[in-house]
């Protein structure tokens, strides 16, 4: 346990002395701001339109959660698909290239502790990212009254989604000493998990159900609508657990070959 925290501490400090993390954070928040602005403009226009038409019952159905936060979270999830691989690509690949991998693997530390430490640090950084993205709901809360619970569920979904991206990124990084290869393969896997249910929509049966189950947006959408379903939480945690298990095996495999 102590080793895990030692590694996590060193990694987390590493994020804050390297430009990559700041670039990731900035791109994430700036793009988020742009999407938020666009969504608010649309919402505003729609409200005016409805008011002009003089239909108060439609007006009362218009709601900041479904019209602004829900689509914003989906946009942010796409930004994450692009920036998270950049955040995680160096985690193992760079250690291999720089030779510090030998230091880690010859220290009296279990490979599981190394993987856990690196994941914890990336998770903590992700938490900071998602927490900063609360700036958008906070602005809404100043000028309107969106439902807090629904937003909380949505942001929890975004965090869990980001954690599964992190764990996939750690896995691909553990396979190579080339950061570009790590980033592109993790990008590929994430995109695949986003579109995996597409061909299935035409078909049916067990395959359809399976592909739909594996689709990340499927589980994410439930949460952005404000529903925290245990099965979705379990799904994301299983993705994390599976990817981290594979990462541990991949690091450990240096000891078999």
């Amino acid at each position, binding site marked *: 346990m102590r080793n895990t925290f030692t590694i996590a501490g060193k990694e987390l400090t590493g994020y804050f002395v390297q430009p990559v993390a700041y670039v990731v954070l900035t791109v994430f928040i700036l793009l988020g701001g742009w999407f938020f602005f666009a969504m608010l403009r649309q919402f505003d226009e729609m409200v005016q339109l409805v008011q002009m038409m003089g239909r108060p019952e439609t007006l009362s159905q218009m709601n900041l959660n479904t019209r602004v936060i829900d689509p914003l979270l989906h946009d942010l999830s796409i930004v994450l698909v692009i920036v998270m691989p950049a955040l995680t690509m160096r985690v193992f690949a760079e250690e291999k290239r720089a030779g510090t991998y030998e230091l880690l*693997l010859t*220290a009296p530390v279990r490979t599981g502790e190394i993987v856990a430490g690196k994941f914890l640090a990336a998770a903590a950084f992700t938490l900071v990212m998602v927490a900063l993205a609360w700036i958008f709901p906070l602005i809404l809360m100043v000028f309107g009254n969106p439902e807090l619970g629904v937003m909380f569920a949505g942001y929890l979904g975004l965090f869990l989604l980001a954690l599964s991206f992190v764990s996939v990124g750690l896995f691909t990084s553990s396979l190579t000493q080339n950061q570009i290869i790590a980033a592109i393969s993790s990008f590929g896997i994430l995109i695949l998990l986003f579109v995996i249910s597409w061909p299935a929509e035409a078909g049916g049966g067990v395959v359809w159900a399976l592909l739909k189950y594996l689709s990340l947006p499927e589980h994410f959408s439930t949460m952005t609508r404000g529903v925290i379903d245990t099965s979705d939480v379990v799904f994301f945690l299983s993705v994390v657990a599976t990817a981290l298990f594979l990462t541990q095996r991949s690091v450990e495999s240096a000891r078999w070959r």
Partner: protein
Amino acid sequence: MGAGVRGAGGAVERMIDVKHLTKAYGSFVAVKDVSFRAERGQILGFLGPNGAGKTTTMRIITGFMPATAGTVEIDGLDIFENSLEARRRIGYLPENPPLYLDMRVEAYLRFVAKLRGVKRGEIEAALDHALKTTGLTDMAHRICGQLSKGYRQRVGLAQALIHDPPVMVLDEPTIGLDPRQIHEIRDLIRGLAGGRTIVLSTHILPEVSQICDKVVIINDGRVALEEMVKDIPEGTSLEEVFLHAIAREGHAEGVSAEEALEEVGAGHSA
């Protein structure tokens, strides 16, 4: 074998025991049936031409990679079976000093100390000692990436000794340094010895005769010679021994210096 189990002085404690080590990368066999041992307090010079299998052997000894066959025991602990305990006893300086270039020297050494299991209350003392020993006290606040090659090597040595290990494995500690730095690092290594067992690989021969108690010459993945430095006859240079040892082919077992020299002598007189 010439060397046998003679200790450097008094009681014999076998700190490194390498038995029949073989390592294959696919069909390429890098190390073939290598055996040697080092007792407590010995400095063992591990010699061989480039590509002879020195780095591979050291990586197996330190538990970085497994052997295809054979065993390594550190202080009686198998590096594979009892890996964590064995690794705790080793300080390892790989060929390239394993530095995190964006960290400050002291932060880096503190991290390594924790990683190698130095107790919380003893970390500052260990850090102080490592910095002093390697002459890095004035560099403690510098960022590793900004250090010169010589200083990086010192930080590499500092991380290898910070947990006060009974065994140190140093892979070409003086490579790429200028003559003055080589001299300093050698002095440093000699100073580290004491009760420690040090394995040091190099292809600089005078280095071995100057600081080592024992020499193991490896060639083409095999041990070509295992001998105490003091048993190498007066007046023969290690270079002759080395060149002759690596010229012999097909010897799985090491030969003694006397045997090697007999043939060198024969060669000269012919």
